[in-house]
């Protein structure tokens, strides 16, 4: 692939107005699939969670999963949408081997939810939070496709592959697709708004409890539409759609990349091809996928095998009553409760750790301690390993337990880091890791006392200085004792013992 020519971002912004559009697919965590009774869980032997319906066998028919409709309505309500009184599923017809029926059962011109908005908070020019309203066009229900695995060839893509395998376990898993209206007037903030929108949407989905919302596993997938128009133009430019951008950071990077790529093409007198593009996480660039033009005709028509979905207003109101607190309002409340500075709060949200910190506090840790662990050691590991912080394998309960053990002086901060390593390595709970790795501090005064005496004996000069009142010299003896105890001692207690023995 040829590296695209890019234009400097400042130059892009000086010449063009970007318009963004985000399509986010949320895989629901219902027990069963959208239109059949197969389990809808991640993983599983390929093609072990399939039946005539989700395999698209001749004669099989779909039946709507009521739990998925419920989740769709709750998402719609949380996004301040209208909920349709009557809507239908539609068939989106196109051929693809991982789509069993060669049509996707989706919704077309009758989405379950429409006309909503989400207020997105980003950092303003003055460093203060700035709220940007993203308007939601629609949220609709559909089914996921199967997953193709292209075997052989260098790229793992279909071109050059020797053969392809398809796993239909994912086929029919319920998806909610949330589509924004074109986001205009964002200027330089477009990349940040894109990221913040997906991040806040993810928080909202998690708060609703309707999805695992794991971007790394694809249970939330973002497609980024971007176009540039000459500054001040009324008309939107030609857009590209970058598919399956699978981390928050990548959402921002993909927007920047496409702005720079479009800018270079347009400034060079070229025109943008309306197409689907692939995002490459490793190199941070997009490459051309299939061309998407008006010739792409999905021949939508209402799904005749399903009856219309007509949620009663009573049901909708019942569901409205189950909505969790709005995450934006909740954040303001938590900041006050926890005594966090604006910076503390922004860092916590930025790291995607708000919910984790909240749960850790709920599990008994002090707010600052919870923040310290998640934004310190654990954020570091998450960056190093390239894993979402929530996917490290450390639970809020683990963090609260580690903090409690530090406070009880069973371990110190240094040992705590080793405990986290152990948890991440799959060695078990904090207590199990301490047990297995022998990490507990020696709290037995007898053993400590013996080590202190040995250190005094081995360092008579230092001992004399302390006897002469130069208490600061105790550091050398503490170091010797800690070395002897392999760090598993409470330094404060060691100091006390040294002073006791020498004065």
């Amino acid at each position, binding site marked *: 692939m040829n590296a695209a020519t890019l234009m400097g971002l400042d130059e892009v912004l000086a010449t063009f107005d970007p318009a963004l559009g985000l399509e986010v697919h949320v895989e629901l965590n219902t027990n069963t699939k959208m239109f059949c009774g197969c389990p809808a869980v991640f993983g599983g032997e390929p093609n072990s969670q399939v039946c005539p319906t989700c395999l698209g*066998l*001749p004669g099989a028919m779909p*039946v709507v999963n009521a739990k998925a409709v419920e989740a769709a309505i709750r998402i719609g309500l949380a996004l301040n949408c209208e909920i349709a009184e009557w809507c239908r599923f539609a068939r989106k*017809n196109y051929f693809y081997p991982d789509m*069993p029926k060669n049509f996707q059962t989706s919704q077309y011109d009758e989405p379950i939810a429409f006309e909503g908005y989400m207020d997105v908070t980003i950092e303003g020019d003055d460093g203060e939070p700035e709220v940007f309203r993203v308007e939601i066009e629609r949220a609709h229900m559909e089914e996921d496709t199967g997953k193709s695995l292209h075997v052989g060839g260098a790229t793992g893509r279909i071109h050059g592959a020797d053969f392809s395998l398809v796993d239909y376990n994912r086929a029919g898993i319920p998806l909610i697709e949330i589509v924004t209206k074109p986001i205009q007037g964002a200027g330089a903030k477009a990349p940040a708004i894109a990221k913040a929108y997906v991040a806040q949407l993810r928080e909202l989905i998690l708060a609703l409890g309707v999805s695992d919302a794991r971007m790394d596993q694809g249970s939330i997938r973002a497609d980024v539409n971007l176009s540039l128009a000459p500054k001040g133009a009324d008309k939107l430019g030609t857009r590209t759609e970058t598919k399956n951008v699978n981390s928050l950071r990548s959402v921002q990077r993909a927007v920047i990349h496409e702005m720079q790529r479009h800018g270079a093409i347009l400034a060079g007198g070229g025109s943008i091809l309306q197409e689907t593009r692939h995002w490459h996480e490793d190199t941070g660039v997009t490459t051309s996928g299939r061309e998407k033009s008006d010739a792409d005709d999905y021949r*939508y*028509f209402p799904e*005749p095998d399903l009856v219309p979905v007509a949620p009663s207003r009573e049901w909708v109101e019942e569901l409205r009553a189950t909505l969790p607190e709005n995450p934006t309002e909740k954040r303001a409340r938590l900041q006050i409760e926890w005594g966090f500075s604006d910076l503390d709060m922004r860092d916590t949200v930025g790291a995607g750790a708000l919910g984790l910190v909240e749960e850790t506090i709920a599990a008994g840790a002090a707010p600052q301690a919870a923040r310290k662990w998640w934004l310190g050691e654990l954020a570091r590991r998450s960056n190093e390993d390239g894993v979402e912080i929530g996917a490290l394998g450390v639970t809020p309960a683990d963090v609260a337990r580690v903090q409690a053990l530090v406070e009880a002086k069973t371990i110190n901060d240094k040992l705590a880091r080793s405990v986290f390593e152990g948890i991440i390595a799959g060695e078990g709970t904090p207590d199990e890791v301490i047990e297995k790795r022998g990490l507990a501090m020696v709290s037995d005064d007898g053993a400590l006392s013996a080590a202190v005496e040995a250190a005094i004996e081995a360092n008579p000069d230092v001992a004399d200085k302390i006897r002469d009142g130069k208490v600061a010299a105790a550091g050398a003896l503490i170091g010797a004792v800690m070395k002897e105890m392999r760090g598993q001692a409470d330094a404060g207690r060691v100091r006390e013992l040294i002073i006791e023995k020498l004065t």
Partner: protein
Amino acid sequence: MSSWIKKSAAELADALAAGEVTSVELTQAHLDRIAAVDGDADSGVHAFLHVDAEGALAQAKASDERRAAGIPASRLDGVPIAVKDILTTIGTPTTAGSKILEGWIPPYDATVVKKLKDAGLPILGKTNMDEFAMGSSTEQSAFGPTRNPWDQSRIPGGSGGGSAAAVAAFEAPLAIGTDTGGSIRQPGAVTGTVGVKPTYGGVSRYGLIAMANSLDQVGPVTRTVLDSALLHEVIGGHDPLDSTSIDAPVGDLADAARHGAGGDLTGVRVGVITELGGEGYQAGVLAKFNESLELLRSAGAEVVEVSCPHFVHALATYYLLMPSEASSNLAKFDAMRFGLRVVPDGDPSAEDVMRASRDAGFGDEVKRRIILGTYALSSGYYDAYYGQAQKVRTLITQDFDKAFESVDVLVSPTSPTTAFKLGEKTDDPLAMYLNDLATIPANLAGVPGISLPNGLAEEDGLPSGFQILAPVTEDARLYRVGAALEALLEKNWGGPILDRLPELEGVQA
């Protein structure tokens, strides 16, 4: 020839209950008949694509054991049946009359098939049909045509010509058909048998290989009205696997038939549909139709003429909606997961394999409808074709609603003509489509309909059919009025019309 095979299913059920015969004997008698007259693609009736002697006899044996233990599964337990090859049957081939499904063995039973098995009816085999139910003559079957037992140079109707011919030729006392635009009723008419298209949603479609989901309906194919009612009661009712199925009990249909067979229709208002008669209808068919109206009058019915002005657009509407749904339904036949796979030379892509397989696997009529439907749904044409057709469909439904305000049932000839010659219309799709002129409106509106034999046309001595239509979920009316007419006709004839069926030559299979 065993005397049992000429009996109705109701008579066979009584004989089984009385211990006069076993299910194994009945099943074997029908298997023998199939072996004697069914032949193959080149000669004989060719009603069956697959005969499951072993499976049917095993089911019959189990039925006899239940009878012996005094725990029959249903009234029809032990009465054999044939099933149109468009319903999935676990472990036995299901082709829908298409090369593209040749050799496919479904891993699941259609709900209707499951109900038949649960009720104890041994399944003799799968019957021939136009490919994917697309046709009115069974000549579009990829496996060779079925021949009409009345005259083997003629068509048995379609798409369910196999089921109708099997019942007419005494190869099975009962059969299952499906009706999207007349595929149960029109074969019934041209073979002198009874066929019922229940109210849309009255019988589960789960496991029915869809042609047009909003029109398809499974129903009984029999020799008597009472038998249809008995079978309808077995297969009808709500199915959680089909969300379009009606969540209400199927009702006492056999009672309605028995009541009707008394022959008294006093107070019943019968509407003759103005638009379904006259020009284009064979004189002998119209003559038989008028004779039947006279019989209904004589039974006390009030016969009036009713206009359904939008019915003249039914055929055009149908030929937009049906292909649209079919074009999408048939997309799944792509050689990826089941069915015929043709791999072109060279280094073919998945798309190349799909294209080659579909090209080789689908017949001309299927391709014609895929093209029609794809076109009708295309961007820029949708509103003019599919969208407009849906509006006309609503108008046709409103015609029915209005008509049923003044009459209890509507009637017409089932098919404009008697059975035509094999090959006569295969090169003229429009002439073929016209066979369903009178049956299509019921599918568009979802109303139930029955066809029963009402005589032999004077000019050719072939059966004609009488169609009765009732409001949605009023299927019982079909059985009451149908059984009354049947009783009056048989009184005139001195017995069932199939008594006049020519002896079928034994053929060498």
